[in-house]
C-alpha cells in the first residue's frame, strides 16, 4: 500500500489511536482485576458491610 509522501503522518495518527485505545483497554482490565482481588480479600477475611441476613446484598454502590 503506497500512501505517498504523507505516509508518516497517516501511520503516526493510526499508531497513536491504537496506542491510546490499547492503553485504555489495558488500564480497564487491570483496574477491574485489582478491584476483584481486593473484594476477594475482604471475602476471605469475612468482612461484610452489614450484619444479619441482608449482609450479602449491595446497597451503596451508586
Amino acid at each position, binding site marked *: 500500500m503506497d500512501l505517498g509522501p504523507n505516509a508518516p503522518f497517516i501511520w503516526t495518527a493510526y499508531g*497513536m489511536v491504537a496506542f491510546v485505545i490499547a492503553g485504555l483497554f489495558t488500564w480497564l482490565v487491570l483496574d477491574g482485576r485489582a478491584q*476483584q482481588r481486593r473484594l476477594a480479600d475482604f471475602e476471605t477475611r469475612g468482612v461484610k458491610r452489614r450484619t444479619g441476613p441482608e449482609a450479602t446484598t449491595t446497597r451503596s454502590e451508586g
Partner: protein
Amino acid sequence: MQTFTQRFANPTQFMGLSARLLPWVAGLAAAIIAYGLYLAFFVAPPDYLHGEIARIMFVHVPSAWMAMACYALIAVSAFGLLVFRHPLADVSAKAAAPIGAAFTFLALFTGSLWGKPAWGTYWVWDARLTSVLILFFLYLGLIALRSSIEDETLASKLTAILALVGIVMLPIIKFSVDWANTLHQPSSVLKLSGPTIHSSILTPLLVMGVGFLVLFIAMHLKAMRNEILRRRVKALQLAEVARAQSGQVTAPAE
C-alpha cells in the same frame, strides 16, 4: 412492576446485565472497526483535494464525535444525579471522563497530523481547534476536581455542576466552523441538508463512527463495572474500620 430503567438503576442488576453484554459489545466493536479499517485503506479512494492524507479522517472524525458524545453523556448523567438522584448516574459520569479525555486527545492529535500537510501547520489558534482544546481541559478539570475532594458526595455534586456548565462547549464546537473564520473545514456529514461527502468515503467513515461508538459503549460499561466494584471495596474498608473501632471501644468493658 418495575420499569426497565428502575431495574437497570440497581447496581447489582447492572453488574449482572453488563457482565453478559460486555463480551458481545467488545467483540462487535472489534469486528466493526476491523471492517472499517479495511474499507478505509483498501476501498476508499484518495480524496480529490487532500489525497492520501485524508485517510486520517477515518480516525480523526470518529474520535471527535466520541469526544463530544461522551461529554453529552457526562452532562446527562450529571443531570440524572442532581435531579433524579439516579444511583448509577454518578458512576456513569465518573467512568466516562477518562475515556472522553482520551478521545478528545486523539481528535486533537490526529487533527494536528492532518493539519501539517493540509494547512502547513500542526496547530493554529482558530475557533474549532481552540474550542476542542478547551473541551480537553474541561475533561481534565472534571477528573482533577473529583479527585481533589475527599468527601465523595460533595465531589460528585460539584463535578456534576461543572459538567452541566461545560455543556455550553458542545454547540460552540459544533458551530465554531460556521460562526468564525477558521482553517478547519465546515461540517460535511452532520448537516441538515445531508452529507456532502461522496459515498465511497462516507461509508467507511460512518462504519468507523459506529465502530468507535460501540467501542466507547464497551469501555464505558467496563469502567462503570470497575467503579461499582471500587465503591464496594471502599464500603467494606469503612465497615472493617468501623468494626475495629467498635471492638476497641468495647474491649475495656470486657
